[in-house]
């Protein structure tokens, strides 16, 4: 792998950038691999990378039906945080955040992880109490969290509506180590680093079947032929139900569409990630200057990567209600991603009833921040045929057993999660 650096950039500038090598190869699939990961999004690529790096398993292929990183990895609002209530979640997300903190150096790729802070506003005493419970849980688990009062919030984010709000700001729960990262770069950085360790990244190769013999996985049928594998990992969030069905599994997942938006480019206006507590809305500003924002699900099963206007109206209204100066800005683009919504809002990283088949999915609308942690834990689970303690609770069986990890307490209604 040609290492990237400022000096190297200077060197290549002298040769007119004509000699930069491919970031990752374009290999043909081999007849078989030790591990085949289905899905070339951030999670699949990270899983392959950590299989190679942490477990020395390099005979690995990532098969992707299109180009890598264009599913939810390239469609999210790029927020990274570990501000969860339940220990099952916050240990996992904190580990992921720790991996984020060293990711540029680890991958030798600038994913622009920017710890600008994530501020969750609250607007009532009961919301304050819920935020406090969550923040205290974080602190007890060694995660940074601060409870801000209204004046502290005002000093930090002066553009909020402090005068005329329907639901006045009472304060906020701040995680300073949270922030944003450049989503595409995460897929590309993991791809390049995995490729450098020998992983084959096979684009435009769609899995059409999962071959099993005697209850054990033997490989995957693809549009480029059969590829044998001792172990197969599914990391196709958004389409998990469909791929898992190829192995006869029926999952506690529904696919829903979530929309996201970006404004025209602006000089710095919003410094941190701010989330509204009186409506579903979150916003940050990208390094390029666009305000990236989103809200809740459209709320019906969908595999179409597009949404509907009523949701748009609600999200935009929440934005102006929270920060009135947004009103005159123009929104440039909107897009939709297909979310694997589980019945408790928490993910799955686990073994399956099929031997040698592993599942990584159910990311709801929080998968991006999990990317390194998810890959790391999935790699561990595949390599050892057993979960790491960070993902031990993230099983399919938890629903049957009554051990849901339902942060919002919303119940088995994915459209309401």
């Amino acid at each position, binding site marked *: 792998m040609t290492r990237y650096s400022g000096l190297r950039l200077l060197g290549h500038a002298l040769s007119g950038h004509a000699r930069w090598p491919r970031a990752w190869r374009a290999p043909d699939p081999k007849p078989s691999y030790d591990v085949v990961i289905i899905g070339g999004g951030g999670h699949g690529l990270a899983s392959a990378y950590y299989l190679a790096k942490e477990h020395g398993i390099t005979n690995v292929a990532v098969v992707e039906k299109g180009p890598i990183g264009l599913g939810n990895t390239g469609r999210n609002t790029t927020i990274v945080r570990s501000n969860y209530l339940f220990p099952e979640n916050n240990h996992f997300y904190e580990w992921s955040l720790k991996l984020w903190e060293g990711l540029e150096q680890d991958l030798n790729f600038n994913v622009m992880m920017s710890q600008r802070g994530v501020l969750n506003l609250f607007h009532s005493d009961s919301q304050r109490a819920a935020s406090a419970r969550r923040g205290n849980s974080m602190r007890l688990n060694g995660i940074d969290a601060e409870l801000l009062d209204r004046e502290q919030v005002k000093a930090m984010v002066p553009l909020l509506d402090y005068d005329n709000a329907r639901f006045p700001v009472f304060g906020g729960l701040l995680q300073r180590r949270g922030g944003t990262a450049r989503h595409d770069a995460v897929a590309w950085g993991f791809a390049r680093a995995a490729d450098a360790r020998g992983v084959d990244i096979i684009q435009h190769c769609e899995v059409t079947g999962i071959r099993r013999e005697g209850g054990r996985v033997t490989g995957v049928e693809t549009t480029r032929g059969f590829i044998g594998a001792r172990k197969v990992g599914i990391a196709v969030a958004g*389409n998990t*139900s*469909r791929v898992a*069905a190829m192995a006869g599994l*029926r*999952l*506690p*997942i*529904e*696919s829903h569409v979530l929309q996201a938006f970006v404004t025209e480019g602006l000089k710095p206006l919003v410094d941190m990630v701010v989330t509204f507590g009186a409506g579903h809305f979150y916003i940050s500003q990208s390094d390029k200057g666009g305000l990236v924002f989103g809200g809740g699900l459209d*709320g*019906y*099963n*969908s*595999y*179409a990567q597009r949404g*509907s*206007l*009523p949701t748009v109206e609600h999200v935009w209204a929440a934005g102006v209600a929270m920060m009135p100066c947004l009103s005159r800005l123009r929104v440039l683009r909107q897009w939709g991603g297909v979310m694997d919504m589980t*019945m408790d809002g928490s993910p799955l990283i686990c073994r399956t009833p099929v031997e040698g088949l592993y599942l990584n999915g159910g990311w709801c609308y929080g998968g991006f921040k999990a990317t390194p942690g998810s890959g790391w834990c999935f790699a561990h689970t595949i390599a050892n045929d057993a979960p790491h303690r960070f993902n031990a609770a993230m099983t399919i069986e938890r*629903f*049957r057993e009554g051990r849901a990890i339902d942060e919002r307490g919303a119940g*088995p*209604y*994915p*459209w309401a999660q």
Partner: protein
Amino acid sequence: MHLIDCPWCGPRDEAEFAYRGDATVTRPAPDAGIDAFYDYVFTRANPRGWHVEWWHHAAGCRQHVKVVRHTMTHAIAATGRATDILEVPAA
């Protein structure tokens, strides 16, 4: 935005409805046991294609409308009352 033909009210905007999920699952008999209720409450076929589902006409007649809708194109093939059995297109 979906236009849903409510059997009682006629075609109405999606904004009047609240989605209530998969209409193909049936509540098991009270004594069917945990596994049966687990399947009913938690597991879903989640098809990419035609999906039979509930839309509650919350801001209208407050009836649950059964809808056959395609999850990729969002086309609606049929709507009916809660007790109607609707034909689901082949593909």
